[in-house]
């Protein structure tokens, strides 16, 4: 089974691959949702694909915008480039885009979750069109997904983690009409996260509520069923999320899959081992969406607009092979004496105290400054590109 992680930028793609993703999905500069993400230019895409392939991972490119007339012609011109670069699949939601990709390239086509495919006849519809894979809508339960996999005999991909659109995917155009930003072209303004005053004319009642805001999805308890049921790919949401998010979620799911496959963990032990780790990742409280049963009232994040964040991304290890220090790129300020966590690629994360902070010339600093390089004491388990985090 494939673990598919978001590659919102070249850096995040590398992070995802190094932390255990079997595949990453990325956006080009055109045609993919998350238009505001740090999308890949052609040269970056080539680099990303080469990097992923070198590490045995695949790269899927999102072409899942709903395109307008003249953009289809631009897509035709873009396809040979994509094939040359060697991307391993195109994620598509618009049937016109599907048709163009199918007729002008040999790229495997994955039907995007934006197509809201949540029933078997719909999966079979896409199979008849020649899709390699269908990414099911988040309204589908794990049991139903497994059933569809069995019946339709086509690759099935399912979201296992991340923020959730509370609408049927592709069925929210609030941003289009309120902010002039097309949510089906990556412009969602997250209107569903706002605080609203609800007035009920029938009884005159008024209440303030984040009534449209969904808790985040975590599918820890469902991974075993997915593996046993033959689900082909489990997807982590979040091309717009931080590097830290990509590293920690990818690592945790990768480890979880290994634990399950090796038979080391069963039932509640899985939850006990992993729950606390997932709580360290910024979240809007977790629920399992529709994976076990229809999402209920308790799937609403009614507390506040933003995520709960316990840890912050403070740095990236750039050199770990020196005998007496590690070179770190600082992403957020921390102080001498602060407790940090090194997120290793595999195995336990390492908690350590920042004994000293030196600038690259060896001068002592009391705190680190974002956008600079520092030297810190060497941690023997550290590897290049490991991430550091600190409790907020």
């Amino acid at each position, binding site marked *: 089974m494939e673990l598919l992680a978001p590659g919102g930028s*070249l850096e995040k793609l590398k992070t995802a691959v190094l932390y255990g993703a079997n595949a990453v999905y990325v956006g080009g500069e055109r045609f993919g949702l998350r238009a*505001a993400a740090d999308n890949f*230019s052609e*040269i970056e895409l080539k*680099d990303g694909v080469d990097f992923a392939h070198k590490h045995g991972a695949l790269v899927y490119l999102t072409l899942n915008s*709903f395109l*307008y*007339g003249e*953009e*289809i012609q631009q897509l035709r011109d873009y396809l040979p480039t994509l094939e040359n670069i060697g991307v391993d699949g195109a994620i598509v939601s*618009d*049937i*016109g885009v599907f*048709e*163009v990709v199918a007729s002008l390239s040999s790229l495997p086509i994955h039907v995007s979750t934006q197509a809201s*495919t*949540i*029933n078997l*006849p*719909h999966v*079979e*519809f896409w199979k008849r069109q020649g899709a390699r894979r269908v990414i099911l809508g988040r*309204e589908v339960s794990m049991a*139903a997904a497994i059933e569809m996999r069995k019946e339709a005999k086509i690759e099935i991909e399912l979201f296992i983690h991340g923020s959730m659109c509370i*609408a*049927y995917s*592709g*069925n929210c*155009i*609030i941003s*289009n009409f309120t902010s*002039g*930003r*097309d949510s*089906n*072209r990556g*412009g969602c303004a997250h*209107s*569903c996260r*706002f605080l*609203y005053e609800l*007035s*009920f*004319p*029938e009884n005159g009642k008024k209440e303030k509520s984040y*009534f449209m805001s969904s808790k985040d999805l975590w599918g820890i308890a469902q991974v075993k069923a997915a593996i046993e049921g033959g689900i082909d790919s489990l997807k982590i949401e979040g091309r717009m999320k931080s590097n830290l998010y990509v590293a920690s979620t990818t690592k945790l799911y990768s480890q979880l899959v290994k634990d399950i496959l090796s038979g080391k963990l069963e039932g509640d032990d899985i939850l006990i081992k992993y729950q606390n780790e997932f709580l360290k990742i910024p979240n809007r409280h977790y629920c399992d969406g529709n994976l076990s049963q229809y*999402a*209920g*009232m*308790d799937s*609403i994040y009614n507390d506040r607009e933003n995520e709960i964040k316990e840890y912050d991304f403070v740095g990236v290890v*750039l050199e770990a092979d*020196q005998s007496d220090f590690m*070179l770190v*790129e600082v992403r957020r300020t921390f102080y001498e004496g602060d407790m940090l966590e090194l997120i290793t690629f595999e195995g336990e994360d390492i908690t350590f105290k920042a004994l000293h902070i030196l*600038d*690259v*010339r060896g001068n002592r600093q009391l705190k680190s400054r974002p*956008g600079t*390089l520092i030297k810190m004491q060497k941690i023997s388990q550290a590897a290049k590109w490991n991430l550091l985090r600190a409790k907020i």
Partner: protein
Amino acid sequence: MSEFIFYALSVMDIEKNLSQTGHHSLTIILPHAQLTPHLALENDQFEKLAIFAWARGLRVAVDLDLIPDDDQLEKIMRVVAEILTKWPKTIFRVKNYGLASLLVSYYPNILLHLNVEFGHHNKESLLKLAHIFEKNLQRFILSIELPQNDIAAIVAALPSSLEIEILLHGPIFLFYSPRKLLGRDEKNEARWPSSHLFALADSEENAHKNFRVYQNSHGTILYHHKYLSLLEEWEKLAQLGVTHFRLDWREIKDRSALYDSWQKKEYLQVATHTPFKTIRGFHQNNKSDSIFVKLKNQNLRRQGPQENGRTYLGTVMDVQRGGHLAILNLNSTNQLCVGEQIVITTPEGKEITVKVASLFNSRWQSIERLAYEEIGFINYVKGVTTKSKVEKV
């Protein structure tokens, strides 16, 4: 010939439709509560109106715009079977291709109107769908996001036998969730309240005002506080090839006055009798994705030699005034060597060309070249900040 198509929630709607001279529709839409998330008729009312409509020579079309999972499909197919047994010529207005395929496989002669309101803004999509659903497809219901030029391009590309419908006057449907978002079940936090609910949702955020929110057994839908109105535009749109214009007045209690003004072609009066302000949406232009070009810093965008004649090398990671610049080589196929010329582009777009006189590693040892994913230090260059882009000339 253009046709105007109305919803019927009562006998009055059907009678008013029939009395429209010149604006009379041959088909009436009867919304069935088990088949649509929008305002609709319960089964017995539906039956009553269907009998009434068919008896008066009207054809009945039924919205089937749910996005069903497999469990819901079964229920839907039962309702469809009941309707088709009684009225075999009923047309279904379907949104989900899985459901449309299923209907065609069960009822090879069924007529469908495909609802492509959320997406499918190009002619390639619609041609493909027309090819797939072939003889079963009578009409496309186009998106309200399409500006007139795109409508024209789509209509011109489609076979003239296909009907094209757009919303002429009615609610702007913004959001559809399977979750029931209004209210709380006080006794059981995990359960949704089962009742039908309506609320106005008002946010302090700009333009998020007075959304009309309906909850029913299918989930929650939300409408913009304004109505879409292209009343003044219909003749122009008809010339472009739009054949059917939908007027959706289901939310308006007193529809009688609307029909009367409509019949007299008093469009201003129609607007006056509409309890919501109206907008023309994206009819003229849809630029709703142009913002993103601005959000990305084009100065730092990584380019290939064919774009600007330079080779991307990496990025500046650390700057010490009067001291050094740290460069991370991010080009897997290129090294930076002493003596080479580089162009450094700051986030603000300032370009500075310098020759690399010397290179050091993090132990401050002199090195000759900087390999992929390595950090190297060069002498400080005035005006350069971290994140600047480094390219080789």
